[in-house]
């Protein structure tokens, strides 16, 4: 859909009244492009804290990328909760653990949370502006660093957008290898998060074992793909390198080991009353609320939203893999934990199917050549959820505009709801069960 706007005062009707999930992106658009949502009550800046002045819009063509940042601090108007015994707990942007920066403002009575308001945008580093003028190879490299834990998903979505815009497709062997990488990325992230989820509920042994299994998994990545997190493996036109022959045996053997080790830990998690007591009924997002907010990906599936691009819009090779989607309706931390276990098992099954059926043939074709003004769209189901990349080509096959869309845009607001009525000490657990991206939405 193309919407033409008047040059002097560009605006469009407020979408957030129909789609509440659109609100933050509307505010981001106003900050970066100066295009306002008409009639929207919340016109506060979202991504602009103080690095550039009000009325200046960095994504406009006449704004030079090399403009030095301002060193101004901006005050943010949080919504205040008043009443007897209500007080605020400000947290961040620098958090107590090794996680990304953001600000959480809790309004509480005693230990009970009445309201959480998030203020993000701290890691805004001008990624969309940075894409301007890059060639496709540089673009794929940058796409793989929008959110480092989802590098395969972003790079693949970017390449699909570019290849689609040039009406070409990666060779079959490349598509298979991309899926192999994507499923390995999914498993790696779930392994890490399941460890932290155990730890956040006091089960340190879970963290110790899951992080050991994850480390083994990453070392296999290094050995087989040449990179622990598979960065720069997916490139425009295909993949960067082939797997060495003995690698297939290594990968196959590993699947069996990991399956049995994870199975043992799953039994431990499932049958640990103390752990389940912390997980069940904590941080609930009901299916109704999830539908209203557009909750997507893993968190959406745990709240009854049965969407997975690998099932509903399968790009090759998923069209031949028949992915079995796991869903739950409880929408609590326990459901999100259970889903992660199920998605690991399903990814291991997919990997087992992928390995023997790797098609022979070329690894990559020449990088697509894009005509000036063509548009491309790519989408991939990353471990968090659907990752979308939209691009517009400029002169000489360069990039004029790239918009990466992380599923966290839609899921962060749901976290504000999930914590209501829970106690403050359960926040890290609830937060980790979503594990949303900061860098991916701060851009």
């Amino acid at each position, binding site marked *: 859909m193309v919407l033409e706007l008047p040059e002097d005062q560009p605006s469009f009707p407020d979408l957030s009244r129909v789609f509440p999930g659109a609100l933050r992106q509307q505010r981001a658009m106003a900050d970066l492009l100066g295009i306002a949502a008409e009639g929207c009550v919340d016109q506060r800046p979202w991504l602009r*804290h*103080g*690095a*550039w002045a009000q009325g200046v819009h*960095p994504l406009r063509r006449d*704004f030079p*990328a*090399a*403009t*030095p*940042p*301002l*060193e101004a*601090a901006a005050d943010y108007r949080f919504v205040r909760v008043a009443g007897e015994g209500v007080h605020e707990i400000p947290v961040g*942007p*620098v958090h*107590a*653990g*090794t*996680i*990304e*920066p953001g600000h959480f403002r809790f309004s509480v009575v005693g230990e009970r949370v009445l309201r959480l308001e998030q203020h993000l*945008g*701290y*890691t*805004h*580093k*001008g*990624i969309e*502006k*940075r894409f301007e003028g890059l060639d496709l190879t540089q673009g794929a*490299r*940058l796409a793989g*660093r*929008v*959110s*480092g*834990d989802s*590098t395969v998903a972003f790079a693949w979505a970017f390449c699909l957008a570019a290849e689609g815009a040039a009406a070409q497709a990666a060779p079959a062997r490349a598509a298979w290898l991309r899926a192999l990488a994507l499923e390995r990325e999914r498993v790696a992230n779930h392994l*890490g998060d399941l460890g932290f989820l155990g730890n956040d509920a006091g089960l340190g*042994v879970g963290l*110790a*074992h899951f*992080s*050991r299994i*994850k*480390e083994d998994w*990453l070392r296999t990545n290094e050995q087989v793909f040449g990179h*622990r*997190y598979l*960065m720069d493996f997916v490139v425009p036109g295909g993949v960067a390198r082939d797997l060495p022959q003995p690698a297939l045996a290594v990968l196959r053997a590993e699947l069996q080991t990991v399956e049995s080790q994870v199975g*043992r*830990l799953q*039994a*431990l998690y499932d*049958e640990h009353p103390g752990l389940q007591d912390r997980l069940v009924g904590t941080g609930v997002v009901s299916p109704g609320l999830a539908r209203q907010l557009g909750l997507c990906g893993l968190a959406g599936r745990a709240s009854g939203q049965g969407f997975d691009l690998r099932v509903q819009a399968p790009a090759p090779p998923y069209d031949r893999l028949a992915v079995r989607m796991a869903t739950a309706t409880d929408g609590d931390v326990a459901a999100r934990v259970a889903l992660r276990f199920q998605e690991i098992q399903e990814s291991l099954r997919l990997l087992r199917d992928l390995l023997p059926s790797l098609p022979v043939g070329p690894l990559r074709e020449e990088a697509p050549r894009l005509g000036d003004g063509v548009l491309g769209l790519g989408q991939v189901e990353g471990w968090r959820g659907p990752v979308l990349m939209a691009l517009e080509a400029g002169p000489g096959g360069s990039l004029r505009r790239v918009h990466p869309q992380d599923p966290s845009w839609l899921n962060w607001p749901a976290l504000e709801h999930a914590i209501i009525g829970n106690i403050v000490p359960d926040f890290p657990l609830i937060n980790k069960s979503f594990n949303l*991206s*900061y*860098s991916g939405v*701060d851009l």
Partner: protein
Amino acid sequence: MYPIIRLILDTPAPREAPPEADSSLRTLRQRLGAEVLGSFAGALTIRHVDAGSCNGCELEIHALNNAYYNLEALGMRFVASPRHADLLLVTGPVSAHMRTALLRTFDATPEPKLVVALGDCGCTGGVFGNSYASFGAVSNVIPVDVAVPGCPPSPRALLAGILAAIAPGS
């Protein structure tokens, strides 16, 4: 309880020897004398600051705590507050919006203190560079003792960098 004990007994501890300090990663002349560094006696508290990273380096920092690298067995551990820290481990290009938080964290860390910048972004600004929203390298905002390149640097490289920061006379 029994399955947990069984699990622990069944699993061999995969601990590996730590790497040597890599003094080539040093960016400043040693600011702290051998005497001060000696007083750490190898025991170090670390505060991580994400100043605008893509979250890739954070994954490798997590890995330092796994059984292979076992950071705590070397006498080092991560702390929740800069006021408890000897060393700041800073990732990312410094985004304009994180500059104040980074400066405040640096000021809140008591002297004597060390700073290790992590990853290609921490070293030079990396793929994000300098822009309207990024100050680039960590050393553009606070003094950096050791800079560890890589995208992301491996846990061993990271460890070699941290060890270089506290190795006297390198």
